């Protein structure tokens, strides 16, 4: 049940427990226990809401920043990653294989705010060698959800 449960709530964390039990073909108590276990084991780390901020009147700018750093003896990249992810405006930090080391995603109110963060805070860290900032112009798909188009059922209404 675990994989199936995770797949369902990854898509829709607001699904009703009773309904979840029905579609998984198990008892409601089993679902409650499994969810609790998944939370305790840190497999479920949170429940978020996907918001297309573009459609609101609230100004938001996001950027992806490639960061090259010098790893530290005994610590590798963990220390520097922690220094970066502690900033609240940083929404994710990944260690990446290839041409650079950390991929940082950032959310701010304006271009200025983001460029300010990069020049004042990120670039000035000792182990940061270089940064390259990419502003996001449009989100087509996020977390497996297509944002630009609505699903339309184009099938014939009745077929054998």
């Amino acid at each position: 049940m675990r994989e199936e449960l995770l797949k369902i709530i990854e898509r829709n964390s607001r699904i009703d427990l009773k309904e979840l039990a029905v579609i998984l073909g198990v008892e409601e108590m089993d679902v409650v226990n499994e969810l609790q276990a998944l939370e305790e084991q840190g497999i479920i780390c949170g429940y978020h809401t996907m918001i297309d901020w573009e459609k609101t009147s609230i100004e938001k700018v996001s950027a992806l920043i490639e960061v090259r750093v010098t790893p530290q003896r005994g610590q590798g990249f963990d220390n520097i990653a922690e220094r970066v992810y502690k900033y609240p405006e940083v929404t994710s930090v990944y260690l990446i294989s290839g041409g650079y080391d950390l991929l940082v995603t950032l959310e701010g109110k304006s271009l200025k705010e983001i460029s300010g963060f990069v020049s004042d805070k990120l670039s000035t860290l000792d182990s940061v060698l270089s940064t390259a900032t990419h502003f996001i112009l449009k989100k087509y798909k996020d977390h497996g959800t297509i944002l630009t188009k609505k699903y339309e059922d184009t099938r014939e209404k009745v077929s054998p």
Partner: protein
Amino acid sequence: MRDMLSKQAVGLKPSGIRKFFDIVSEMDDAISLGVGEPDFDTPWHIRDEGIYSLEKGRTFYTSNSGLMELRQEICNYIKRKQGVTYDPQHEVLITVGGSEAIDIGLRAVVNPGDEVLIPQPSFVSYEPCAIMAGAVPVIIELKEENEFRLTAKELEDAITEKTKILILPFPNNPTGAIMERKDLEEIAEVIRKHDILVMSDEIYAELTYKEKHVSIVEMEGMRERTILINGFSKAYAMTGWRLGYACGPREILEQMTKLHQFAIMCAPTTSQYAAVEALRNGDEDVREMSMAYNQRRRYLLNAFREMKLSCFEPFGAFYVFPCIKEFGMTSEEFAERFLAEEKVAVVPGTAFGDCGEGYLRISYAYSLDNLKLAIGKLADFVERLRQQDKKHE
């Protein structure tokens, strides 16, 4: 001009679905639960392979039997799933959907007056195809008390010395019934005893929710007398690509290939390239879709239990077949009133044979949200009918 038309063609009953379709298509805001095809898009990597084949200019006929590459993949697939071996050179034919295989398969084996056994409720094409092939369709009425499976007794009772072939439509459209290994073993014995052929339409093979699909060709002595039909429409959500196939003994496939060659030439080339990709890398897609169907199936069965609507538990395809006999209406009346009053389309069971009377086919090839909306309306409708009945008493 006198006698412009073929009496045989004119004599065919129009599909019961067609009539209903005409009513529904005039209603813009109707919600439908009447669709017999997946709601998923064809997985992108499969579509991409089709597009790529067009870019590469693979726009010519393939051999009559279909791309060798695809036939080989089909043989690998059947070997993997059923443990049965077919020779891609002589025992596989790529067709335009499973439907073409039904048509030419029957025409390849029957002579005028031969009887074709057709268990019903079942897909709408078997009976007309049998008639157009010059055969006599003999209907076996499946029973809800047997979960709409075909029993050895029912089969035995229907066989005469004219019986040529049995059509075996499982997992079943419209009932969702499956045949498990023990069911197949029992009927295989009858088939061997009477020395008849089988056409096993396994288009829903990938969509079973109990044990893994079992094919009649796995039973002793069955491979050499069975036309096995399958395709890509349901498993890979590829209905519009029109691609199916038939496997069977070389003698039969040779005749089928001849008919196919004269009527069709070859199945669509683009679709064939896409299908190779489906068989090579599509297992995970099938698993995901089948998981989603199963969730919806459980949702519907639970909803029927809650509204106390009688429905046997189907373990295949993407249909449920609830019984509406308690309301004292024909299936068609029920479906028409439900559509008029709640604007939800379901298909009357009678569209799949007279013995579908008293049942509805409800498809769960819809998102859960859609199903919830429609089932809420069904619950209201059912409740209203029951209240009306009470008043009349």
